[in-house]
């Protein structure tokens, strides 16, 4: 049993604050860190400190960056007529991995969630509206998650952006690749039918 003033106890308590890490996992990580060679643990501590000190939200798209504007906003090879709106900064890397999208991004930093007290007033859309107003966007893809909260947010965004002369689209919903129709529920199949595409030669 470690005393309250034991440094290891403090480490465990700090690790427990990370979402998804419980008491047992925190203890396991803490003992692993203690067992590391000094230079490795110093390197980890420095990496955390540096990442925290040097990263911030991009002044244009809200993505996490260490340069302002971020890599995606300053890339001149990207299409200025296309914008993709995502919920969180880490969603950008999932879309980037596809290699299909070459437009600009905008990160909402959250979705409408009444149970967490996030309503339309809490969702900071002023920056997005300003960007759309001043930009030359022809199409905006709303890429929020296919959940109730994501759908409500997408519809809210569509409502506030419809006054601009821009095409608003939503990512398709339906069957995941490699799945089996027999195991899909009625909502998924309905969405897949609604979003069906024409076969081309």
């Amino acid at each position: 049993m470690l005393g309250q003033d034991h440094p290891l106890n403090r480490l465990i308590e700090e690790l427990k604050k990370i979402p998804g890490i419980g008491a047992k996992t925190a203890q396991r990580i803490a003992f692993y860190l203690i067992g590391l060679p000094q230079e490795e643990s110093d390197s980890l501590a420095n990496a955390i400190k540096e990442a925290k000190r040097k990263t911030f939200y991009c002044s244009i798209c809200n993505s996490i960056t260490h340069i302002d504007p971020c890599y995606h906003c300053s890339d001149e090879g990207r299409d200025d007529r296309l914008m993709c709106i995502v919920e969180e900064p880490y969603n950008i890397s999932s879309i980037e991995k596809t290699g299909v999208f070459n437009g600009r991004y905008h990160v909402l930093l959250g979705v409408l969630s009444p149970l967490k007290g996030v309503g339309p007033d809490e969702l900071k859309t002023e920056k997005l509206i300003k960007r759309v107003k001043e930009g030359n966007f022809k199409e905006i893809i709303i890429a929020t998650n296919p959940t109730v909260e994501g759908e409500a947010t997408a519809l809210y965004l569509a409502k506030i952006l419809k006054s601009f002369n821009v095409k608003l689209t939503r990512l398709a919903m339906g069957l995941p690749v490699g799945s089996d129709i027999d195991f899909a529920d009625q909502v998924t199949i309905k969405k897949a039918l609604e979003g069906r595409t024409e076969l081309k030669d």
Partner: protein
Amino acid sequence: MPLEQSEAIVLRTFNVGEQDKIVVFFTQDKGVIKGVAKGARKFGNRFGSSLEPMSHVKVFYYEKERRDLVTVSNCDLLESFFEIQNVLKTSFTLSYFSELIEEFFPSRSKEDILFRLLLSTLQALGAGGDSDFLGAYFEAWLLKISGILPNFKTCKKCKKEITDAGWLSPKKDGTFCIHCTPQKKEEIRPELNQFLQWIKKTPPPKKKELPFTPEQLMHIRKTLQAIIIFHMEKEPKSLSCLK
């Protein structure tokens, strides 16, 4: 570990770990239970859309002794209310319902009437019912089921029948007539009694033509929400979004 099954409505979910979700179910036979749905965030997971809020499902789960969380093994979708939540107001109203159920009813207490109320309200919304009216309907029944709906018919002090407007008592446990009221803060209009009588005889309405005007409904909801806020000792988060 025997496998149990219940008919339930999903109240809310939140992420845990890398791929899992904690789901709050409102079951017909055991009230509110929380469970871990492993792998529910993985793409193409076996739960599909069945864990979306307000889905009417049949849930299969394992329970361990001395553990509050159950393990959800499967979830069959019986009726989905995903589409109706495309309307922002309806979506917020349903979040408000789920917050009220979690706040007013303790875990694992069987609330069959409330379950049927929620399901029929959802079905009425799905059939095109008015979300404001159904919101008032649900609030009134929820207060009635939880036993905190005061008597609005007679004065709390002089016991005389209140025929005209009355005033809600400071502790929100009754009504005072115009002669007995210690403070004229929250007025209760006569239509509240008419509304309470009406909902006793009528299932959640699916039609747009309703016996109460939007203004009357606004006053009815104001009173019901004042009682809810008083007993919760705070304003529900979802209600402030709804407002």
